[in-house]
């Protein structure tokens, strides 16, 4: 075991610090803030600090996978106050899939503008009757001549109201193909066409984020499918291994704990800051233990993977573990908020200002986390089956196929 940074890593850090000193802030002559930020990101990519997993020919910096360097970059950029790499579905999901499964033409066409954030992406997986059970999706694409004609409806597409491109799972083969998920293909779609109608869905926080997307004879070129017809299930389930994925949840948890401490410092209880209450302190320490467990479990997994050792099942559990932690955090912050829980933006009221503004929203969002990306019950099924080797569900289609298989 060795958690210290190697000499090479310390040199990497020193060079990065130098780069940051030289390149941020940039002179105002370069343009407005946004332009300066973009220029910084361009330089950071060129220097190998951003877009690290993307080949140079497609606009990335093509660096070997190194989660520790990823952490160093995050730490130093944050410390320096420079613009961070923008994480979006394009670079986070579409590009890795294209790199692994795309044709050279597909890569050349889609990746560079996605890296430059000229192509921005939303996701079209769920349908009104296919939420957790994606294999039952019904949106269809039929090949007519050299075009796909698409009909159906997607739902819960975050950002479809502002992003022009969608990565979607669509049924291209007959519905009686068994198993059911075999008939699905992985599509890259341009939503800017008459056959596509987008209706925003307001969230319970009052903000729009989700959308319904209706396809009525929408079109896509024949090469809109990545990874081959009927192979969409496998393509979309590709394990994403890029430096930031494992730690984004953990870093977020650490950040929230720090914010919770600040709120507890700013909240008076019986004439004393709440952070001095032993019960509050112990509660926050409980969160810290969980964040620590997450971080070092992830380090362990990554370290073992790096040398080809079987790394265990931690990554499969992290989402549920994080979800539980956020629930406990919510309990603590709501008790600290007290009256302020009743306002969407308590920070507005100067009397109540104690950095609370985002906790009410966080409390509502914590529900979304439990639902989105596979509900907690689905996660528990997966853990029961894959980690513990327990039998598949005895109810529903899986049960039926199990029963048929055992006949």
């Amino acid at each position, binding site marked *: 075991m060795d958690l210290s940074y190697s000499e090479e890593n310390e040199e990497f850090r020193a060079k990065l610090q130098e780069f940051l000193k030289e390149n941020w802030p940039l002179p105002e002559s370069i343009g407005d803030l946004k332009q300066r930020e973009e220029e910084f990101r361009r330089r950071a990519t060129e220097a190998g600090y951003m877009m690290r997993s993307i080949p140079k020919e497609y606009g990335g910096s093509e660096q070997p996978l190194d989660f520790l360097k990823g952490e160093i970059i995050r730490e130093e950029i944050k410390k320096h106050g420079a613009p961070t790499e923008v994480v979006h579905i394009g670079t986070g999901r579409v590009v890795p899939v294209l790199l692994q499964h795309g044709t050279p033409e597909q890569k050349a066409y889609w990746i560079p503008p996605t890296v430059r954030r000229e192509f921005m992406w939303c996701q079209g997986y769920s349908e009104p*009757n296919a939420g957790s059970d994606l294999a*039952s999706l019904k949106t269809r694409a039929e090949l007519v001549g050299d075009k796909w004609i698409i009909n159906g409806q997607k739902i819960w597409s975050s950002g479809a109201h502002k992003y022009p491109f969608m990565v979607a799972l669509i049924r291209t083969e007959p519905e009686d193909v068994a198993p059911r998920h075999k008939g699905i293909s992985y599509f890259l779609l341009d939503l800017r066409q008459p056959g596509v109608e987008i209706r925003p*869905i*307001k969230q*319970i926080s009052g903000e729009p984020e989700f959308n319904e997307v209706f396809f009525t004879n929408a079109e896509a070129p024949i090469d809109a499918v990545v990874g081959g017809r009927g192979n969409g299930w496998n393509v979309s389930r590709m394990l994403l291994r890029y430096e930031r994925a494992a730690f984004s949840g953990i870093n977020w948890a650490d950040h929230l704990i720090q914010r919770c401490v600040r709120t507890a410092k700013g909240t008076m209880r019986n004439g004393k800051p709440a952070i001095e209450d032993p019960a509050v302190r112990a509660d926050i320490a409980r969160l810290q233990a969980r964040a620590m467990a997450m971080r070092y479990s992830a380090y362990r997994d990554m370290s073992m993977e790096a040398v080809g050792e079987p790394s265990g099942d931690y990554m499969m559990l992290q989402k549920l573990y994080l979800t539980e932690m956020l629930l406990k955090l919510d309990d603590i912050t709501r008790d600290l908020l007290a009256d*302020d829980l*009743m306002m*969407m933006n308590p920070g507005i009221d100067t009397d109540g200002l104690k950095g609370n503004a985002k906790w009410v929203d966080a409390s509502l969002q914590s529900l979304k986390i439990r639902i989105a990306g596979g*509900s907690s019950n689905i996660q528990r099924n997966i853990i029961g089956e894959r980690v513990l080797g327990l039998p598949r569900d005895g*109810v529903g289609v899986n049960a039926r196929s199990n029963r048929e298989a055992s006949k």
Partner: protein
Amino acid sequence: MKFRLDEDQQQLQATIGKILAADRIQPRVRAVIDGKKAWDEETWQELVEFGLTAIIVPEENDGMGLSLIELAICAEELGRSTAAVPFLGHVLATIAIVEGGSEEQKARLLPGLASGEVLGSIALTEGNDTWAPADWRMAPEGTTISGRKRNVPNGDIAQLVVVGIEGGRLGVVEMAKPGVSCETFECLDLTRPICSIDFDKAEVELLQNGPAAATRVWDAALALLSADAYGGAWKITEMARDYVQVREAFGAKLAEFQAIKHQLANVVVEVEPTRGLYWFAAYTYARMPEKASHAVSLAKAQTTEVYDICARMCTELHGGIGFTWEFDAHVWLKRAMFDTAWGGRPQRLFLRATEFVDW
């Protein structure tokens, strides 16, 4: 001993239940949620006509002379329906005057509140969990008060507000008088919007019977919120129960998955017993006042915490649709969050309850 609703009370609950039937009320709540109306005046008028505002007012002051038990039964139905009406503030202002007013004050102020002609509200906390009468710092100068009160339910439409004053006293302020201004906010629970009221040398009329009445008002609030929580919790549980029997995934009804069934069972196990608890809270307030502060504190803390957990679980059981503005689950969820916060957070009230035991 008969711990049941008598025939009059059953009748009352049935009638209120009819006024507040979901098919009547939900479209009106929706109009408020979507910002088409500020509040549900139509339903309030129906409730006023039925006599909701007269229940707790003594007969000699043009009221029905009933008790908090009857009022709590109505609060359960209001919680169930999520009706966007100014019930909470109005009845608490009424109770403040019933408990704290001199005969002359009662005779002068109660008939208007009982008939619904005058809309009242209540201003207790000064922020940061200062719901207890002992925490109020707003001091009168002569016959005026200055300062800010927070979390006043429907304060923006009230004509009269009862204000908690230093030393656990209560005072009546007419909102239309000079020196009173109301600041509204983006509220979490849009069916019960709260606001802050600023008093700048505003004229105040002190109620005769101070600190004891103030405790009674707080206690009444806790009992009524308990009832609201029970009513809301059962309703959203029913919604989830119905949904999981219709919605399918993986080729089966959600309800056929044992995990779903058990999640709902766990909810029911927590929710059902809170009815006895809120009944007892209202009962002690009405009939065993020496036990009321203890019982209402425990009841409010417990029922609202359960409502919150229940609303979250039931929202989650609806999947993605539960997280949309268009679907109604969030109306209950946000009322649950309001119920936990208004009048004192659960941890504070569990602790308050221990002031009345011999530990």
